[in-house]
């Protein structure tokens, strides 16, 4: 994974739950690109289309709360979401996203500093988030090295495969 990314923001509110990210009725879909067609459609039916060009989702508090379904971050990742920035995350979503190689960063104050359409730049290793459109930047708590390692490997399975084969 590239540790520096750029893209336009799409902003959502507080408590975005995994049922609205990917409704239960699609849970039997296996292909992640099929899941992606329904990402966040309950809130914005056009989201999957908008995300295609590669976007950064910005959320409020408790992003990804509710069901443990990994299909939710998978749907976001394969719809074209490069990264999710939020005031805070529900813990299972946070872990799931890292584990499938979708970067997520907790960033206090991000939701009031970003509007949909703003161009953002994120540097994971430096822990730096920049709103290029508004000329504002944030220094966030860096992800711990073992999480950065999982992300740079592309997910937990790839990370585990590399580590277990090394033994």
């Amino acid at each position, binding site marked *: 994974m590239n540790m520096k990314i750029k893209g336009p923001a799409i902003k959502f509110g507080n408590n975005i*739950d995994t049922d609205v990210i990917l409704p239960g009725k699609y849970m039997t879909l296996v292909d992640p690109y099929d899941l992606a067609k329904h990402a966040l459609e309950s809130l914005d039916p056009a989201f999957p289309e908008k995300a295609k060009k590669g976007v950064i989702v910005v959320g409020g508090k408790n992003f990804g709360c509710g069901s443990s379904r990994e299909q939710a971050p998978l749907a976001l990742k394969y719809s074209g979401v490069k990264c999710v920035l939020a005031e805070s995350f529900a813990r299972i979503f946070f872990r799931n996203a890292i584990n499938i190689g979708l970067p997520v960063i907790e960033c206090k104050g991000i939701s009031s500093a970003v509007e949909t359409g703003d161009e953002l730049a994120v540097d994971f290793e430096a822990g730096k988030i920049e709103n290029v459109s508004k000329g504002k930047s944030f220094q966030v708590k860096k992800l711990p090295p073992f999480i950065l390692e999982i992300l740079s490997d592309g997910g937990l*399975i790839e990370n585990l495969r590399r580590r277990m084969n090394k033994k």
Partner: protein
Amino acid sequence: MNITEKILAKASGKKTVHPGEIADANVDMIMVHDLTGPLAVEAFKKIGVQKVWDNQKVVMILDHQVPAESVKAAELHKTMRQFAKDQKLRIYDVGKGGICHQVMPEKGHVIPGTVIVGADSHTCTYGAFGAFATGIGSTEAAAVFATGKIWLKVPEAIKVNVTGQFQKYVTPKDLILSIIGRIGADGAIYKSAEFTGPTIKSMSMSGRMTLCNMAVEMGAKNGIIEPDETTRKFLEGRTSKALPNFESLKSDKDAVYERTVEFDVSKMEPQIACPSSVDNVKPVSEVGNVPIEQAFIGSCTNGRIEDLRLAAQVLKGKHVKDGVRALVIPASQEVYHQALSEGLMEIFTDAGAMICGSACGPCLGGHIGLLAAGETCVSTSNRNFIGRMGSTQASVFLASPATVAASAITGKVTDPRKLEAKA
């Protein structure tokens, strides 16, 4: 240390642990179900390990989309059965178990003091037995299949101290809704919620499970209750494993909590979570006139025998209002059998309620009992998010079995105490 810290210290081979530190914990039991299991199986195969780390510690349960409602679901179930066969895993198939969080304790897979992870967010239910239990995703489950280990950040703890005696028709469900209403949907993110106090000590396992089940609805990593004689009695005859000394699982007098919140249930009214968030809670008496189309009694939150008894007590000799579909789903085959033998099923069928097989049912909107646009359901389940039970234009209210049963009779959201006063 508090009970959660004691369990995590032991599981990671340390004398003590502190909030914020990462514990590399040994897992005692892992559970996956039919919506998260197939992805876990697929991920496990990619790791390149042949066998799961310990086939006695992996349990598979089919409960979300059972019996298979589509060919796609049938294919996913087939994947799970094959994996269970190849790896010699315990699998609770259709008709052999029920909802995972009911089956795990019933079948003796939940032991106090152990670390249990499950690929389902309501895995926190097992904290009712004094286990550290938390939800994980499918990929993480695959990693646990391979290694038997998981990294866990030791959580800060919130102590929820509960006193007082419940009034008639006020239940642990009303208490947990009230707690979530006060703490908020994100008020306990990353944290442990430890339920304690005289009301908890005198509460049945069923009620304790309802409390811990919904800990995740305020963001908690785990809900937990110190095990005691009530716990021991429930486990008797269900497991052949040695139980730990429960004294070692008591939180120390000087245990540290981020904060303590106090609840007195003695004057508590029946509570209800209004659409579309679990913390949008008020007394049932304050919601006004809300007509309903569906009433659902079941789920891992409230599908146990005590819940069905309570609903039957309200529904006995009454009729489900025309225009309302009432669905009753016992949480497991064991609960189903018990309800049959107590004559509860007669009461439900005579009232005009439909009894469905033990499974998750309408709770997650993936299978039976979905809602159309504009429809409203009052439900004993745990989530009322937009689109959770079908249409994104439908509404879900969350309440106790007594409130749901009373509402089924009147055709609108109803305080069960009012219904009784009228009768």
